């Protein structure tokens, strides 16, 4: 296959992934690595490099819109970025040591967890009382805009959230993904933030986290221009287009389809990884 034909095919795949990601709200980044490795037989390290680049693009492109809505908690995001960038540096450095087959297996597990989470959305635990003393000291508590005016929330369990965020960073650096699923786990579940606040703050953080991995990836030679270009442009165009047609889209059906697709990809990644190790 010529480079031009390869790029055109990868572009179409990335376009579809970006669109599905925007329509389902699950992010298209997580399917990029399996698509490139399983469908196009790209080495997982080049795939991770291209995926990471597309994650930075979509996160940065969307950040402006999220801040405008007034949900993102900027100070909390900045504070937790210490955790995610630290984790990302460690994770990205680990990619030079850990075997690609092991990475493939970890990737499969994260995909399975994502599918499980999209099928069973967690409960909200928002309270305006008893904030963590660290949250008070760092002024992390905030308010969420609602139709009935701003609703205050108190941030809980800051140390636990911070540790989980280090984990999110490690996964992001190790797999070349945004790891929004783990960030949401840390913020919704551990720190008791409202959903909208945690998803928008998470998106705000993803670009910075990914940039921390990207430097290491580039030094290690994982970012190939001819793989990254069609992925980045494809995902960006797909995300923009998906956001436009969101209003009329059958989101529930798409979410189910996307979850099924993720499970299939997860099994393939696990099989590929286990075969390589054995």
């Amino acid at each position, binding site marked *: 296959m010529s480079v031009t034909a390869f790029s055109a095919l990868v572009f179409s795949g990335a376009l579809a992934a970006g669109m599905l990601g925007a329509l389902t709200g699950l992010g298209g980044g997580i399917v990029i690595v399996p698509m490139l490795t399983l469908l196009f037989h790209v080495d997982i390290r080049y795939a991770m490099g291209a995926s990471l680049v597309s994650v930075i693009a979509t996160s940065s492109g969307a950040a402006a819109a999220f801040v405008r809505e007034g949900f993102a908690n900027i100070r909390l995001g900045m504070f937790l970025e210490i955790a995610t960038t630290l984790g990302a540096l460690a994770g990205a450095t680990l990619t030079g040591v850990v075997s690609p087959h092991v990475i493939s297996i970890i990737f499969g597990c994260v995909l399975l967890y994502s599918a499980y989470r999209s099928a069973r959305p967690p409960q909200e635990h928002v309270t305006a009382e008893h904030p963590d003393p660290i949250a008070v000291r760092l002024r992390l508590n905030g308010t969420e805009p609602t139709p009935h005016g701003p609703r205050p929330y108190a941030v809980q369990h800051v140390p636990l959230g911070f540790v989980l965020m280090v984990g999110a960073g490690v996964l992001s650096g190790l797999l070349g993904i945004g790891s929004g699923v783990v960030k949401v786990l840390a913020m919704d579940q551990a720190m008791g933030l409202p959903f909208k606040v945690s998803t928008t703050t998470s998106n705000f953080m993803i670009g910075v986290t990914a940039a921390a991995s990207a430097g290491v990836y580039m*030094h290690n030679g994982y970012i190939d221009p001819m793989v990254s270009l069609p992925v980045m442009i494809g995902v960006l165009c797909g995300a923009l287009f998906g956001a436009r047609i969101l209003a009329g889209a059958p989101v529930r059906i798409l979410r189910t389809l996307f979850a099924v697709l993720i499970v299939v990809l997860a099994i393939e990644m696990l099989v590929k990884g286990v075969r390589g190790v054995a």
Partner: protein
Amino acid sequence: MSPDGPPPGPDPVPPVEDERVERALGTLLRHGVLIAGAVTVLGGFLALTRGGGAAANFATFHGEPEPFRSIAGIVSGARGLDPRSVIQLGIVCLIATPVLRVALSLVAFAMRRDRIYVVVTAIVLALLAVSLFSARG
């Protein structure tokens, strides 16, 4: 927490102020992505005009050649309009966008004399610098 008043601590920053700065930074991010996208697409066109017919082989990992791994190498290649270097330069612009955002947040916190967040943001920026400029192991 004492029952007779709000907890002690620094005065909260008015959220409106926060939001104004963040909105400006959000716009900056979008422009950064647009510029990065334009540069990579330009590189893509250059690649098309100069033999995009080469066989694609990404199945085995060789690691990128040395000039594509460092900012200096990429910039010097892009000056000669080498297509792959131009694409790589666009990707460097993209990576730089969130880093610039953090740097400008640092300035914004410093202007508000928000000492805690100056420190927090400086740590994040330092970690990013380690990733971007550290010597390869």
